[in-house]
């Protein structure tokens, strides 16, 4: 009995050590799992691989929504949207544009002629605008909109890696209208990319209020009766 134990004991120790050594998660290693009941989802998790390939042959479960999909946050029967043509247009503006380089100027001006900020510049809207500005815009446009964000001008001095310095708001914003700003934020302009993917329509209008405030221009809501869609 004793002899047997002495023989088995070291083997058990080595086996335990071996089990412990190769079960932990680490570099490229998810580690061992015991009885994974209800661990792996039957439904597709976000971004999970799909077993039905896309027409291009990629196994993505994240697909483009079908045409006509209503965006998140859009309430079709909201009277505020129905009665405010400027607001309504900002949801469907994309349908009016071709985004071809030669028609760019026309479409940019079309947005300016037909869109005005429908939101009241309340404290809440401005605070939300500030939050969004600091997340999405500050990095290039700088904290006060001077065009010196941390990737344009390094905080310690010197040029940042981003070479296209945005113009200061104070110099530019007096010349352009709300619709111009909405167009640039949504679909991009020059070197700037479009943020329509990241920001809802409401958030974009909130941002525009805050940016105007930064540039020293009093933000105002649209006078609904003045705006008509051509």
């Amino acid at each position, binding site marked *: 009995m*004793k002899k047997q134990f002495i023989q088995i004991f070291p083997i058990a120790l080595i086996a335990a050590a071996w089990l412990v050594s190769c079960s*932990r998660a680490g570099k490229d290693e998810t580690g061992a799992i015991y009885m994974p009941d209800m661990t792996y989802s039957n439904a597709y998790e976000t971004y999970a691989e799909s077993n039905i390939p896309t027409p291009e042959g990629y196994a993505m479960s994240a697909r483009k929504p079908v045409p006509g999909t209503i965006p998140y946050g859009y309430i079709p029967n909201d009277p505020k949207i129905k009665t405010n043509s400027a607001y309504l247009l900002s949801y469907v503006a994309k349908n009016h544009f071709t985004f071809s*380089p030669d028609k760019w100027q026309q479409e940019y001006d079309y947005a300016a002629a037909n869109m005005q900020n429908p939101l009241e510049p309340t404290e809440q809207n401005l605070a939300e605008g500030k939050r969004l500005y600091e*997340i999405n815009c500050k990095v290039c446009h700088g904290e006060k909109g001077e065009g010196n964000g941390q990737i344009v001008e390094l905080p310690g001095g010197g040029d940042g890696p981003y070479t*296209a310095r945005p113009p200061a708001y104070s110099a530019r914003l007096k010349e352009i209208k709300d619709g111009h700003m909405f167009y640039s934020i949504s679909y991009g302009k020059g070197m700037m990319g479009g943020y329509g993917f990241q920001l809802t329509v409401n958030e974009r209008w909130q941002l525009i209020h805050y940016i105007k405030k930064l540039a020293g221009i009093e933000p105002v809501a649209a006078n609904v009766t003045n705006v008509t869609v051509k």
Partner: protein
Amino acid sequence: MAAFSVLNGNRECGVNHWGARLISYFLYFFQIPNARSKIILLFLDNYLSALIFAPHFYNSMTICFRMTSPHRPCIRTLFALKFIPVIFFMLSAFNATAEIDKAKWNEGKALFKSNCAACHNPKVDGTGPALMGVTARWEAAGEFKGKTGKQWLYVWIKNWNDPVNAGYKYAMDMANSRPSAMNVFATLKDEDIDKMLLYVENPDFGAAPDVTKISTPAGGEPPKESGSNTTLLIFALFLVVLVAILIGITNKLDRLVAEKNGEVVQESKIPFWKRPKWITAFVLIGIVLVGYAAVDWGTHLGRQQGYQPTQPIKFSHALHAGTHKIECQYCHGSAYKGKHANIPSVNTCMNCHKNIQKGPKYGTEEIAKIYEAVGWDSKSQTYSKTPKPIEWVRIHNLPDHVYFNHAQHVNVGKVQCQTCHGPIETMEEVYQYSPLSMGWCINCHRQTEVQFASNNYYSAYEKIHEDLKNKKLSKVTVETIGGTECQRCHY
């Protein structure tokens, strides 16, 4: 003696520095002939190469130290000597640029930044073309209507329509070369344009720090719990051995004293590992160790703390979130709005990388993968190629039977990203920082206080509001509002 060869793969790993130093210390220590002179050579060489050569230059070298022939000069030093003409060339180039009026250059840079930099850069193509050498290009376009090319350039900068309407061919070509039209700068004076051109033609004159050499903060390694455990274990073993030796010595001394006193010491014939006392001790220690290991191992089953998969693009959070301080939600914007903190789509990358085409560590290699994924043709500056998805590897895998919502934690709870994801801003390659175990969740729910007062979100909790008023409750944690109920997360 064998020949040594030190391969320098990566400048940052410092292999050659430490390797070279170790060898030199070794030579010095064993008083090998000519070692002293060799050390000086080695150090000098290190300094020289660090000062003079660009990193990529330095990377591709293989260095040999042949210890069999001590009189042979160090190959790398020779290599350095070879490039002395280069240094002279660099110095002379510097002398040539030294004639620029610093004040004018600075003014020109400021003017350029406020007027032109949104679309133009001296060296990089953007919305507008790269401008270095623009004077020469217009000069070469030739005279027209009594004005030289350079004079036409000034006209163009003030209002690009004028030379086009006048019928100057080069200007017409330029106007057609880009989809977006240039702004009009009618108020610019000729001397302002002089200054701006001074900057454009000599963009490096001010010697701004090179951004491609920003060092990323150290760290980014998975937590090395096992590492510290091993050190402790080694230390413990060392102590045990020390104690055993001391016991042996005292025993021996005891025996010597006993022998001196004339007592007869009886030597036991049975070795210690066969004595019952020792066997019991071994078994007990074994049970404790194996038991601890088994429990520890068992609790880690199904958990992935420290999981660090290799990603298809070597995206560095240390550079983006650490060095450049880009907000987490710039890319992971839906952490505020939805259950899932999104993986940014490639157009988010393109917001900056349309312009930034070269990274500090991997150069164009990794950024080219973004271009490939989004179908961006950087030559024609259009999205003309076929896009291709990037297959990122998911790091945080929560079992399906647990519900977790980012918006609830980020938006309502105001929990910082780092609370759960650890020092993301120092991670070169992201790993799972937290265990994501149920104990870990519950612990945080028990300890975290909820911002309850003047928060509309919790207005429905009337009883708790009343209890707070009557001082029955001193604080409200997540547990108080039901944060540890089973069905909060399991449904």
